[in-house]
């Protein structure tokens, strides 16, 4: 059967990050679809030759979307390199900053970027399918949503003293103690943040119940799941071992980050610059897995804060205790994580040890290799450094969250395109669903540059002979 091709190409920050190509059959159905990442990440090479202790300051400047995650993962790798375990207070302070990052990133994604699609409908007029449209539905919630993101960002600032590039975590600890006035300032806003998150959770649950047919056919596929857990298999965002479970939730591996190469390999496809990580022992493609909120709540057996745990129990029953595999539940999982992050932030703020003055271990016993890991908002983030005896970096390998989910995003695009896209007259709502499949994973593709491009989404419907039959574009 002859095929034609649809290309969805956002002209993004650095020219040519990613695009979606949908290959159509001549009967108007979708043959297959790809999510391509055209971006070349050269910064690992760029870091070689630098001193290892510079990395916590260099890596946040590379990524503009989650600088705190890179900052902290890098500092954790440097702790190990230097042989200097951070004091207890320093660990608490770092984790608190990380909770701020989770809150600000997740809340912005749900309320400002992805939520309007869900709440106002994929087929709603694009003119109202936005945060402004949301205001019509619930003005108070919209204001609350802005304040929630601000609350998370404020935690980062109050802990680290900077709002853009943190320089707070250093090898062996941190460089700033907590003060009573800053602690009280953060605590004062906790209750309202919890309320807002609970409103959001009700919103997504009501939406899922009302749109269950869509939820059950939108990018629905099985995979493994990967994420950090506590020693009792609870949800963990800052530290712990990496747990990998299969599609049925059965544990495949539990390993320390230092051993990631024994368990994770990367597959290469000729249509994407971004590699495809998979579980080594199952091979490609059987060993594919997902990370991020959905992945984390599938590897966790509980959450150690009360409100998030209560919600987790409800969430866990979606598939009767089996892993939640429906892509649209990423949004529900994301908000449960916000709830956990706020509760965890409160626990940390109420812990007297947070006010300690012992924040830096100055031990220096240089090792040759180390891996730092944490759960960035989008998923597991690994920083792997090798240094020479002078402390200069000889090799850097970063496995970022979006990389882990590369297969899943492409699979989601393929699934949604086959389910919803019917050619040749592709409607805006169809295109929006394809975008929404990617947005559910909240990918970070921009790699920190912010130059203005027009950012249109363009679909070219190309006949088998190469002529463009129809172009659909949204600026």
């Amino acid at each position: 059967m002859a095929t034609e091709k649809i290309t969805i190409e956002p002209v993004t920050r650095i020219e040519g990050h990613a695009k979606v190509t949908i290959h159509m059959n001549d009967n108007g159905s979708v043959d297959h679809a790809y999510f391509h990442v055209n971006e070349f990440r050269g910064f690992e090479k760029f870091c070689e030759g630098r001193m290892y202790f510079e990395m916590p300051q260099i890596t946040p400047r590379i990524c503009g979307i989650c600088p705190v995650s890179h900052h902290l993962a890098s500092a954790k790798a440097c702790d190990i390199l230097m042989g200097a375990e951070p004091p207890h207070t320093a660990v608490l302070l770092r984790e608190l900053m990380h909770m701020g990052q989770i809150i600000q990133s997740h809340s912005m994604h749900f309320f400002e970027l992805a939520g309007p699609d869900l709440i106002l409908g994929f087929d709603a007029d694009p003119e109202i399918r936005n945060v402004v449209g949301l205001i019509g539905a619930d003005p108070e919630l919209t204001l609350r949503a802005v304040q929630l993101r601000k609350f998370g960002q404020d935690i980062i600032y109050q802990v680290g003293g900077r709002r853009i590039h943190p320089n707070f975590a250093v090898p062996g600890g941190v460089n700033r103690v907590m003060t009573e006035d800053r602690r009280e300032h953060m605590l004062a806003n906790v209750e309202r943040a919890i309320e807002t998150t609970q409103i959001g959770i009700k919103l997504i649950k009501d939406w899922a119940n009302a749109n269950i047919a869509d939820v059950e056919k939108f990018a629905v596929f099985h995979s493994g799941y990967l994420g950090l857990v506590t020693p009792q298999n609870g949800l963990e965002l800052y530290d712990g071992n990496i747990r990998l479970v299969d599609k049925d939730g059965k544990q495949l591996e539990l390993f320390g980050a230092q051993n990631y190469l024994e368990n994770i390999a990367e597959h290469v496809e000729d249509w994407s610059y971004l590699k495809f990580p998979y579980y080594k022992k199952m091979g490609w493609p059987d060993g594919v897995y997902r990370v991020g909120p959905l992945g984390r709540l599938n590897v966790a057996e509980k959450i150690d804060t009360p409100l998030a745990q209560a919600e987790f129990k409800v969430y866990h029953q979606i598939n009767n205790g089996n892993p939640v595999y429906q892509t649209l539940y990423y949004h529900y999982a994301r908000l449960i994580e916000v709830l956990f992050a706020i509760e965890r932030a409160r626990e940390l703020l109420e812990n007297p040890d947070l006010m300690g003055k012992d924040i830096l271990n100055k031990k220096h016993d240089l090792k040759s290799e180390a891996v730092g890991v944490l759960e960035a908002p989008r998923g597991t983030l690994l920083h792997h450094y090798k240094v020479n005896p002078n402390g200069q970096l000889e090799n850097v390998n970063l496995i970022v969250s979006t990389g882990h989910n590369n297969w899943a995003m492409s699979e989601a695009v393929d699934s949604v395109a086959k389910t919803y896209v019917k050619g040749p007259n592709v409607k805006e709502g169809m295109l929006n669903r394809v975008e929404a499949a990617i947005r559910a994973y909240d990918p970070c593709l921009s790699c920190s540059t912010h130059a203005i491009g027009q950012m249109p989404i363009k679909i070219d419907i190309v006949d088998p002979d190469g002529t463009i039959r129809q172009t659909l574009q949204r600026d």
Partner: protein
Amino acid sequence: MKANTLIIGYGNADRQDDGVGWHILKNLAEKIGHQVPDDPGEVIEIESEIVDLRFILQIFPELAEVISGYERVCFVDAHTSDIPQEISWSDLDPQYERSPLTHHMSPKTVLSIAATIYGKAPKAILVSVRGYEFQFERSLTPKTAALSEKAQERIWEWINQGE
């Protein structure tokens, strides 16, 4: 004293021409007698009788509250080859623009949030300067550096015209 005009430069100053907003803001700060740290690693907030200046890494929702307190706002950024002009100067209307695939917000979007939540969006313009290289450097390419000087002069005129 807070002015009624705000200039917002944004971008990543560690990624060469992407940081043109930072360079322009730094020079404007010097024009009104303020010094900006050499390390563009923090938010900059300068208030003066003539103009207020702010440098940020990216646009975020709570910026809506800030801009709703001004009569005029000028956003300064870099642009890629998708925009043909070397210096692009455009009026902005409050209008939500969705990020198709990734985690990102535009000036028009934050204006629309200001208008709807706070009931007021300032008169706004976007000045963007063509960027040619986005490597890991803090200095601008010569072409973008030359353009940034022109853009800065025009922004200065706009500030002083008061319209």
